């Protein structure tokens, strides 16, 4: 067994789906931009030394189909470099890193680029052809509830009020804005040169512009504005556009190296993944997935909750995040100190990799040794990964 180390990580800015800077940009293009810059940032690493590229994506079809990781690897690193696309929905980005870590640890590889990419602008969340299994849908149609309704179910079962959700959402924006103002995200974002061709008033317009700032956080939001939004999934429900994660576009990747490779290149490791586990819960309350996954991860890592200084908990929905925090008794000051998906956005399969970057960087800032990344997953799962961070 050898250790696997994260030595670098980058992401695109998180674009607002359908209206933001990446609304016409494919996620494989975003991934290529990130990976090319990422490999440049590891001194001495030749693109062809990368053994594999693992790309997590939640809807691997249409623009994200054709086994997109292969084409990302080919374009960004060279024809000899292979790629594999994996899918664990919202856990995909973290799962990709876990697979990379496991492969290196078991001696199957020395250098892997892993992360996730998602365009929610171009590929619909349910895919273009939704075809659930009939016997399952016949007997358990509730397994296939939309995510918003699962959040309503969580809010009802865990007694989260609309006001609490809105307050959480407001705080997420405030924290994200503060982090942006402090320049916390600047170093991890690769500016993307967007090239798009559109037609306006019968004229073909080719536009070039750079996207380098997260588009989600709103400085003009307020408790009052949030409280006025109507529920969108359930009549007299509490889940609104304001207290849900935003739909987004983005790509994020890290480089993992074996011990030997770290020594050879003489780079300073950031962190290593101690463990990463997934667990199942009832699909109707999929948001509670982390409650099952986190204790199992702590146990495998031989740690207690209080050992973990930073927690990145994906905010699929404010009420869901609150219910998880209460059930696990998480310290609110350690959870998402720089805002979460409600403010910054949630590009599904990419999110696990974004949270990894946020967790490791914040732990380094705070000189914390352990950081936890966890997310709930549609279909009723949770994923939790624990990093040991080197300051």
């Amino acid at each position, binding site marked *: 067994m050898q250790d696997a180390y994260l030595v670098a990580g980058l992401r695109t800015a998180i674009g607002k789906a359908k209206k933001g800077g990446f609304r016409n940009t494919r996620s494989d293009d975003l991934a290529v931009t990130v990976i090319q810059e990422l490999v440049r940032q590891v001194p001495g690493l030749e693109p062809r030394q990368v053994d594999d590229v693992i790309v997590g994506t939640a809807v691997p079809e249409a623009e994200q189909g054709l086994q997109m990781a292969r084409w990302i690897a080919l374009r960004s690193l060279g024809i000899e470099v292979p790629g594999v696309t994996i899918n664990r929905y919202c856990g995909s980005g973290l799962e990709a890193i876990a697979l990379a870590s496991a492969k290196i640890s078991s001696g199957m590889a020395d250098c892997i680029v892993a992360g996730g990419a998602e365009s929610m602008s171009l590929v619909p969340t349910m895919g*273009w*052809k*939704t*075809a*659930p*299994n*009939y016997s*399952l*849908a*016949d007997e358990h*149609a*509730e397994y*296939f*509830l*939309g995510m918003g*309704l699962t959040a*309503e*179910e969580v809010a009802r079962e865990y007694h989260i009020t609309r006001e609490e959700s809105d307050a959480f959402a407001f705080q997420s924006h405030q924290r994200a804005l503060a982090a942006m103002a402090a320049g916390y995200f600047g170093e991890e974002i690769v500016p993307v040169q967007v090239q798009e061709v559109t037609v306006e008033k019968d004229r073909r317009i080719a536009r070039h512009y750079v996207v380098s700032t997260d588009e989600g956080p709103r400085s003009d939001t307020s408790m009052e504005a949030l409280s006025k939004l109507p529920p969108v*999934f*359930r*009549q*007299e*429900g509490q889940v609104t556009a304001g207290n849900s994660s935003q739909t987004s576009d983005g790509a994020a990747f890290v480089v993992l190296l074996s011990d030997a490779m770290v020594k050879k290149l003489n780079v300073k490791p950031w962190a290593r993944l101690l463990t990463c586990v997934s667990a199942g819960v009832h699909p109707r309350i999929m948001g509670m997935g982390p409650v099952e996954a986190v204790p199992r991860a702590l146990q495998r890592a031989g740690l207690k909750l209080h050992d973990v200084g930073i927690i990145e908990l994906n905010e699929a929905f404010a009420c869901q995040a609150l219910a998880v925090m209460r059930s696990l008794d998480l310290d609110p000051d350690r959870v998402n100190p720089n805002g979460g998906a409600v403010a910054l956005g949630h590009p599904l399969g990419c999110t696990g990799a974004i949270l990894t970057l946020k967790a490791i960087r914040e732990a380094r800032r705070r000189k914390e040794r352990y950081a936890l990344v966890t997310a709930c997953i549609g279909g009723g799962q949770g994923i939790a990964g624990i990093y040991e961070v080197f300051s």
Partner: protein
Amino acid sequence: MKRIIQRVAVLGAGVMGSRIACHFANIGVPVLLLDRPADAVPEMPDPAEQRNRLVNESLQAALRSKPSPLFTAKRSRFITTGNFSDDLPRIAECDWVIEAVVERAEVKSALYEQVERFRKPGTLISSNTSSIPIHLLAQGRSDDFQQHFCGTHFFNPPRYLRLLEIIPTPQTRADVVDFLMHYGDVFLGKETVRCKDTPAFIANRIGVYSVMHIFHLTEELGLTIDEVDFLTGPLIGRPKSATYRTADVIGLDTLANVARFVYASCPNDEARQRFVVPAWLDQLIGNQWLGDKSGQGFYRKEKQNGKTVYPSLDLPALQYSLKAKPAFATADAIRRAGNPGEALQCAVSGTDKAGEFYRRFFYGLFSYVSHRIPEISDELFWVDAAMNAGFGWQQGPFAAWDAIGLRRAVEGMQQEQYAPAPWVEDLLRQGHDSFYRWGNNAKQYYDVSVRSYRPVPGSESFLLLEDRSGHVVWRNSGCRLIDLGDGVVNLEWQTKMNTIGGEVLEGVNQAIALAERDFAGLVISNQGENFSAGANLALILMLAAEQDFDELERACRMFQQTSLRIRYSAVPVVIAPHQLTLGGGCEFTLHADAVVAAAETYMGLVEVGVGIIPAGGGTKELAVRAADAVEVGLPELPVLQRFFTLAAMGKVSTSALEAMEMGLLRQGVDRYCLNAKRLLAEAKHQVLELVRRGYTKPRPREDIRVPGRSVLAALFAGIEAMVFGRYASEHDRLIARKLAYVMCGGDLSVATPVSEQYLLDLEREAFLSLVTTRKSMERMQSILQTGKPLRN
């Protein structure tokens, strides 16, 4: 001179202007809608947007109003907005400029001066004024302007109110008048009525006389407001809002203003005193009790014990109170009458106070309209047409007079001290005894100027079933098959709400059999208020309550076979629906060889509301249309979902155009007709057209590719989301799942071609499993008893 209207300008975006613009958008003509430029507001950065603020806000208000002025939301793309300062030059691109600004002559004149600067010679220019004499507005304008200038008086709301008054001046070119009369009728779907340029034109002159006459009669006979509304509503073929409710809607101040206007402008009107505003009406206006716009008028909306009630005003105390339902022996007699003519005869022969009221009301009205010929119109039929289209009177005054009996009414008038105009006496002296008659296969009217009968122009395009009641080929208790001539027959039914029961099913089958034997083709249409409210629910509920499965199954099968018969007949069957076309009425329509719908057709499969699925072939037909819309190889779900939702949500189109967007009408096969009065003639024409093209009986379908279980699973998931989102009840879920099952062809492993009969069997099975459930029966009961759907 040939004219094509490719673009219209509407000047003034008030209530009328913006809605007139919307109606041109409805018929697909691009409109330029202009109003005054707005003052600068600093928070709007775009100067053009800033200056168009007034017109844009006004248009948005119109678009939001209910019922919508547009056939479908998409039609708003036909409207461009602008303002008088920046955009008047663009009227040079328009073929017709319609002015609808504030009713002040100097404002209109100043605007016309601007219009003259940019208007291309030959462009139509018209005013929507309701009160300013058209010839005064034309004064001072160029010759070309005056020759192309005319009054075009739309009624509010222009999409729904059928009357369009065309008022030429002596300078207006004849071809301009002819063009507007024709365009308004065929393109805009209006009843175009040619008026003389006299105060309040035709409809408002007679309408306001009628209202004021009734106001005075109320006082003179000591009747209550409730009694008068009871007597002047549907009982005698007038709208439900009758007299005083209508006044509340119009606004008491507006009404009084028109009355005063007529009084002042018509010094020689023999009934001028009837236009004097009663003191109590002035008092109401003084109190600001102006009707709906101020919350109270003749009626006031109140909540009592959680129920909304409408107490009416007591005259002369001017207090509101709830009153018992009015009862008159004459009213009972009217109700028992067999036809509208007999009903009016009963009305004027009553011996109670109601009879007295009717005599004075009708005889006064008859006298008044007879004296208006030739003052407001040379031809008497325009008066009837205007009152029918503008005020919803089933029979105009001359038609009503005929119904009572011309001679008999004249005798009655003499006893009540009302005198008919001398030309009426002259007509009687000539030995005639009606204003209208049939001659040479056409409807004729008595032309006062030549003292003889002439055909009502255009009546060949306005086929009326009532006029052809002498040509009944076959009938049963609910249906009549009428020969329309040229080898085409029409089946109509006249059941309550035009619902479909056993007699109608028999009628359709018999009509097709007879058409196959003796005629070229069949039209199914009627000229009642609605085409059909659906299947006869009372019958279904009765069988369901008795758990009579055999009879239910037989009835359902019969309905399905009748729908199939409509599709698979040896002669073309054209269905011409109008207004409500729901449930079974919609199912029949879906099976026609071609549909010619009225533009105002409100179509939908609403069966879920009564706890069942469409089972007269409607669900089958949705599956067929979905299958035909799916390209093999592409996902079926989005298309299936669209058609499934139509029935699962009981969606009803708000226009024929929307029915086309929804897929209930077929592009390129079905069409719609703007003027409902032309509907039957158009449908007949469509039958002949299908015959001419060489109609052959279609082959039953065996190639309907239903998607099977994958799509069914996705629909189940979608239904569950509706339940969890609390938009659907448990019973809704049961119904929706059955509906989805039929539409997907059941739980087939993969997409499979099936026959219509296969789908009909699934449809019938699903219907039978739902119809006897307690909750479905409760839903039917609720509709039957309260008219309101029950969500259980």
